């Protein structure tokens, strides 16, 4: 395997891992506050389609990215309203969000299938991008990839050294106690759910505006679900999400990796790989069941109803 191919593989790994990082970081924050949102797929699809529509209507890709984010936030607020204010079952509501987002996005995007756009172009960072190998891998990416680095740093910092991070964890571990110390449990949960929506919307926008770039029905192909597994796999730690997302990114571009070898495998069989890997990871986790349980936010999935 020559160095150029390796560079290309790592370059593509980062690109494919990026939407997973965005969704998984958002969902991690959401789960840290005790809310399990299985609607990632629906929010991503909405972000993807609405962003794509905005790109065609306005011609401005950065406006389109913002619109994607807002679409995700809108979907997340629907989920938040049902699951936080109306204390509905989070699992069922998340599934509903996925089914609803799938339906709504297919409907909205029906006349946009097959339309092409230029997409967000790579932005070379001066000087750094000239470093051999690493320059291409890390600093010749598109701006949304850099944004994913920044958002990772932000999430890491919030949980590492801010009061907000502490409050979010308190709400996810023991909402009653958090409430007693004067933390607004519902406020924090709304904040986290909507942040998760923004991240999922952004991830969807990344797919339709930068990665592919086009819109097709159900184009997220389970990435939202893979991200959900990733959060568990990463035991709710941002740095492990980053690592895991790139591992899954690599699993999704096997065709590129196999180019250097003599193996020839049908593309549809290779396409199974990320899903098989996810199941494999879930099985691996079970051997470490006690530890996973230790890291799980105590009140994950449990609605909180303030005693009035």
């Amino acid at each position, binding site marked *: 395997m020559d160095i150029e191919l390796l560079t290309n593989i790592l370059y593509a790994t980062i690109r494919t891992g990026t939407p997973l990082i965005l969704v998984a970081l958002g969902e991690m924050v959401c789960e840290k506050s005790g809310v399990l949102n299985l609607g990632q797929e629906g929010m991503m699809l909405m972000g993807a389609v609405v962003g794509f529509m905005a790109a065609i209507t306005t011609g401005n890709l950065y406006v389109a990215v913002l619109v994607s984010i807002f679409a995700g936030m809108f979907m997340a607020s629907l989920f938040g309203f049902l699951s936080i204010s109306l204390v*509905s079952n989070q*699992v069922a509501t998340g599934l509903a*969000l996925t*089914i*609803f987002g799938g339906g709504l996005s297919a409907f909205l995007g029906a006349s946009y299938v097959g339309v092409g756009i230029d997409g967000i172009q790579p932005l070379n960072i001066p000087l750094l991008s000239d470093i051999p190998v690493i320059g291409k891998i890390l600093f010749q990416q598109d701006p949304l990839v850099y944004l994913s680095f920044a958002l990772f740093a932000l999430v890491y910092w919030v949980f590492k050294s801010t009061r907000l991070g502490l409050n979010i964890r308190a709400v996810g571990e023991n909402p009653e106690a958090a409430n007693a110390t004067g933390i607004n449990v519902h406020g924090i949960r709304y904040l986290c759910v909507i942040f998760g929506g923004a991240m999922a919307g952004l991830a969807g926008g990344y797919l339709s505006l930068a990665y592919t770039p086009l819109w097709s029905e159900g184009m997220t192909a389970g990435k939202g679900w893979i991200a959900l597994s990733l959060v568990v796999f990463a035991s709710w730690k941002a740095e492990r999400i980053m690592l895991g997302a790139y591992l899954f990114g690599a699993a999704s571009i096997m065709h590129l990796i196999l180019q250097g070898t003599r193996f020839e495998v049908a593309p*549809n069989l290779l396409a199974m790989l990320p899903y098989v890997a996810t199941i494999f990871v879930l099985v691996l986790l*079970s051997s470490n069941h006690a530890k996973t349980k230790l890291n799980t936010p105590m009140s994950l999935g449990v609605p909180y109803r303030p005693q009035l």
Partner: protein
Amino acid sequence: MHSSLNAILETLFPFKIEKRPSDSKLMSYLSPLIAISLTLISGWLLFIALGVDPFTALYTFFILPISDFYGWTELGIKVAPLLLCAMGLSLCFKAKIWNIGAEGQFIMGALGGGAMALAFLESESSWVLVPILMAGILSGLAWSAIAALLKTHFKANEILTTIMLNYIALNALLYCVHGPLKDPEGFNFPQSALFGDASLLPLLHDDYRLNISLLFGLLALTAIWTLMSRSWIGYQINVLGEDAAAAKYAGFKEKTLSWFALLTCGALAGLAGVSEATGPVGQLVPQISPGYGYAAIIVVFLGRMHPVGILLASMLLGLTYMGGEMVQMEMTLPKSLTGLFQGMLLFFLLASDLLISYRIIRIKKTAMPSDPTHAVSQG
């Protein structure tokens, strides 16, 4: 800052919810009707936004497809797979097993049965349906066995594993129709050869496309209904779902029950899949399932996990498929309205389900209570 946020929330939503002393039976039946009404109202608004006459559009979507007998037989074709998948899923959901895998089990049933049908392409014996249907059922069952093994032995979250299995099943189907099962004379289209006449499910009447798969569905309904209301294992599943601790205390084997529920669902969804392939479709194609396995989840919730409710709900969901096709043909609206209506139904249902255990009461707008200490000091 927090109290001001609360104040904003209260102005936006001046109600609070209060737990009922006990769940309202009435509301659990009314909730689906509320959800359907809200979906229709949203549909009305949506069609106005699309610039079409809402009455005509809703009529075309929900009434026109079943305005004659032929329409009802076509509805039967959609009801059969929904009913089979939903009855299986209801068993899992009753046991609080979140099996989202009916879609994958459906696809594997179609694939396994379809492969068998292709093996008997030349056969003219009507007995050939037996191995074909068996292959379909067993393929669906085997697919759900993976999920069962992952759940009981490896304690992996069944929502995530079944969804991953759905995507793997879809890719397996794609692989087969692009590769080993592709019709050699099919101009390189990703689809199998047309099945032989003997491999197709018998029609109920020569003038209609409706076949015996509807009978399979009704049979499954009766069987599961009897099982859940009359049998020891059904009782155990109910208890397990209601109160896992009580089930454990009573010595019920949770693993065995999980296996039973998942395998039954897999077999039924597999049967649905092979019936679709050897029924209205007649060959293997990439889009063998228009999302029946996912729609069946909505059917189960909308039908309150009760067989009669599930039958009615599968008719409504079946209708959304026909409605989508109808508005596309008659009014050139996108067919994907189907998914939108299905999504809205489930969403509104979950919202209305709140009314089962809670009631919503208005927060009384009280004037800011005058500060008592202040009053005292004044006096």
